[in-house]
């Protein structure tokens, strides 16, 4: 089976600042992959480029052999897709919005996910705590049935109870052949979830390794493996 995502020689520059240089990687079907890197390494930018919200790049992004951004958008569910909505909207209004504009959004799944994550759909987005906002983002993201899910730091700034609930939802609601690319600062939180790890450093991918290989061949935990790339550097996250 061909790879789900193939990125070749991707370079991205903005505001006279090079963010990604000659980055190449492939993602398989049916996997949970950790995207690791220090702050400012370019993880979010990489996700934005894959999702289609960043547009001017050099190189090639091929998702299921499609390069057109509009088609890519129909195959990717990005956790940042809520950005720009009116924060005064009620959660069920936002779900209605997604139901209207995303043909792959399954309202029944969203309702189940929201119930499981104990979200009150009558509340407004700006009334939610940070933890509940993250949970809502997960519910919206996974209610779409797509092939690639991009989760950008889904646990950032939330307590361990909510973190566990979100992790449980990710495991439960991942469609069978779908792939999840997940970036996070707390490597230990997601280590047990991961099938593969990608390390972004110096504006490019410096390593892509299976989690089992890291544990068995390198005899390291994923956290130690990731930290080994930053030994002697001050920018360690």
């Amino acid at each position, binding site marked *: 089976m061909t790879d789900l995502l193939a990125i070749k020689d991707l370079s991205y520059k903005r505001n006279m600042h090079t963010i990604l240089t000659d980055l190449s990687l492939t993602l398989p079907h049916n996997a949970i992959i950790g995207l690791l890197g220090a702050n400012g390494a370019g993880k979010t930018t990489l996700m934005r480029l894959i999702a289609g919200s*960043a547009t*001017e790049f050099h190189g090639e992004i091929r998702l299921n052999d499609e390069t057109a951004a509009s088609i890519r958008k129909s195959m990717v569910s990005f956790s*940042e897709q809520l950005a720009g*909505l009116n924060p005064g909207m009620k959660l069920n209004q936002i779900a209605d919005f997604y139901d*209207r504009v995303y*043909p792959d959004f399954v309202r029944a799944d969203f309702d189940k996910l929201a119930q499981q994550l104990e979200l009150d759909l009558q509340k407004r987005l700006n009334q939610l705590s940070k933890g509940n906002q993250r949970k809502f983002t997960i519910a919206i993201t996974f209610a779409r049935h797509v092939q690639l899910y991009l989760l950008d730091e889904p646990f950032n700034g939330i307590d361990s109870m909510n973190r566990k609930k979100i992790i449980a939802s990710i495991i439960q609601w991942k469609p069978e052949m779908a792939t999840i690319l997940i970036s996070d600062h707390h490597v230990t939180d997601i280590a047990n979830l991961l099938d593969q790890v990608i390390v972004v450093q110096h504006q490019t991918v410096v390593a892509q390794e299976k989690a089992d290989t890291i544990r068995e061949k390198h005899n390291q935990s994923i956290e130690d493996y990731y930290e080994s790339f930053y030994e002697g550097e001050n920018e360690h996250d």
Partner: protein
Amino acid sequence: MTSTGSLIKTFWRQKARIIHGAVGIELIFIILTGIYNLFKGSWSDSLPSSLTLGYGSVAGFVVFVLLAQKMERSWVANSYRLIPTSDTKLYCANVAATFLSYLYFMVLQVILLAVSALKFFIDGEASFDFPAEAWQYLTGGVLIFISLLLFTWVFITLIHFVTITISAFLPTIRQKLFRFILIIAVIIITLFAGNWIDSGVQAFSQWLLSGFGLAAPTDTNVLLGLYLSSGDFLLSVIVMSAINVYLLKHWVETKTSMD
């Protein structure tokens, strides 16, 4: 992929909220001012119509600005830009929904005006018995108003997109200085654009001066001028839209949480 119909409906709902809010506030103002005049003893039969026209004009301007603001925000919002559709369709749907929303607002204003002037209709004092030429002028006036509306929204988008495109090439640290310079540049560009559309506005002014429905038109060239000016505006809308779609596709990115 999301259908164009769903896109227009979605953008329409977003904008209909603005219009309902504005008309609601307008109604409150009309009623409160009416009650005030009633107690003050200065009520007249024509007061409701005058109030509707007065507050309606203010609401029209506010709605115009809010619709423009809403449209510009959606270009840089993930929630809209990540919808699985082409940028061309997204652009057309958003502009069309903005335009249709304003037409809807105008229809609401006509209904309000008709209700406020109900007494004159019942008493048989109001009449639509204008000369045929007056209707032609009215059509021309509406056409030029509509094309001017579209022109202004598309022009605002063009300035927004050009600003974003140029900003992408400048260092982050000088963005504030750059934006200040850009505002000045935009003012200058707007003045040039003002000259460009001057001919259309002049024709419109001549038509207004000829007397709205009260005097028979004396210069048939004015009517032709109105139609030609509308065509001129609409042609500009098409050209600017082509540039806007290109910039949207290649240069206009969504805002990040750090923006």
